[in-house]
């Protein structure tokens, strides 16, 4: 899946693309190692962890699925929760598609790399040419770091007693790091609080894993019109 061969053009300015792309890659690398460790400890294996990272390739979803399985949740709730988390990649696809025109094959390939980091890096560039380059440079960096990190984590994962070293907390710690940048708006904060409340309130009563899926309902508050003044006052 080489990223078309257009990186090699002469006179292209990579300033402000390669540096941030590598920095993002390094951050992702840490998540990837954690993912590999947690995946093999949740009854996964090196091939399963690698298949996830090579094919699923969207971190939060992978963590979510493994987290639900590790807790004893059903396969259905693991998959549905993970796919709900992955639905944002569809929005990202719409956002970056205008900057990545090409054949059907090219666009299907680009779609696989359309995730948080590549979308963010693409949209902040100021010219179509730089947007396209930023997308592919970031894709290469993240894909490389993500899969190498997963492999390292999966290979060493079985030698850890995850409980003893507190490694099970790598799940919530990683989720805290992932969610923090999302909580910039009032509605996102409300969605976060709502999701947390739904999870805790339903856990005793529904199948393990189902609270994660159910928490997505809170996102419907997006449809409530925002208003500056309270209606009642």
């Amino acid at each position: 899946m080489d990223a078309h061969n257009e990186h090699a053009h002469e006179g292209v300015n990579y300033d402000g693309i390669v540096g941030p792309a590598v920095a993002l890659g390094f951050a992702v690398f840490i998540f990837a190692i954690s993912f590999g460790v947690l995946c093999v400890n949740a009854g996964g294996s090196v091939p399963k962890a690698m298949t996830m990272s090579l094919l699923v390739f969207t971190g939060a979803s992978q963590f979510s699925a493994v987290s639900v399985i590790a807790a004893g949740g059903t396969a259905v709730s693991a998959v549905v929760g993970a796919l709900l988390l992955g639905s944002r990649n569809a929005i990202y696809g719409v956002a970056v598609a205008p900057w990545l025109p090409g054949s059907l094959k090219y666009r299907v390939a680009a779609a696989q790399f359309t995730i948080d980091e590549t979308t963010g890096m693409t949209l902040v560039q100021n010219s179509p040419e730089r947007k396209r380059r930023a997308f592919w440079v970031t894709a290469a960096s993240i894909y490389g770091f993500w899969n190498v990190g997963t492999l390292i984590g999966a290979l060493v994962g079985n030698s850890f007693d995850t409980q003893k070293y507190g490694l099970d907390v790598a799940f919530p710690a990683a989720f805290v790091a992932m969610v923090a940048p999302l909580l910039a708006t009032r509605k996102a904060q409300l969605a976060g609080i709502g999701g947390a409340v739904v999870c805790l309130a339903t856990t005793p009563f529904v199948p393990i894993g189902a609270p994660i899926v159910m928490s997505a309902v809170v996102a419907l508050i997006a449809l409530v019109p925002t208003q500056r003044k309270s209606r009642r006052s």
Partner: protein
Amino acid sequence: MSWTVVLVLSLGAFALKVFGFVIIGDRKFPPQVEAVIALIPAALLCALIMKDTFTAGHDLQIDARAVGLIVAVLGVWRKVPIWLVIVLACVATGITRAIS
């Protein structure tokens, strides 16, 4: 973690990406749909944090994991590098378990 889960997730995640990028492509999602989808990660990630910290099966419980969560939240808030946040959170929980 069965192969079925791995493969269904692989196909589903790819399908979502292709749906946005290729099928919808240059057109737009209805703004309401986009707004709802945009809020899903905040809700789900916070739900996952609660599940991974405060639940064990169907039970709610507060244990050594809560210490790790507090450390993680403080670390992210103080803009500590992500790798260090994860390491510190795990160490904090590990130590708490060891001494309790």
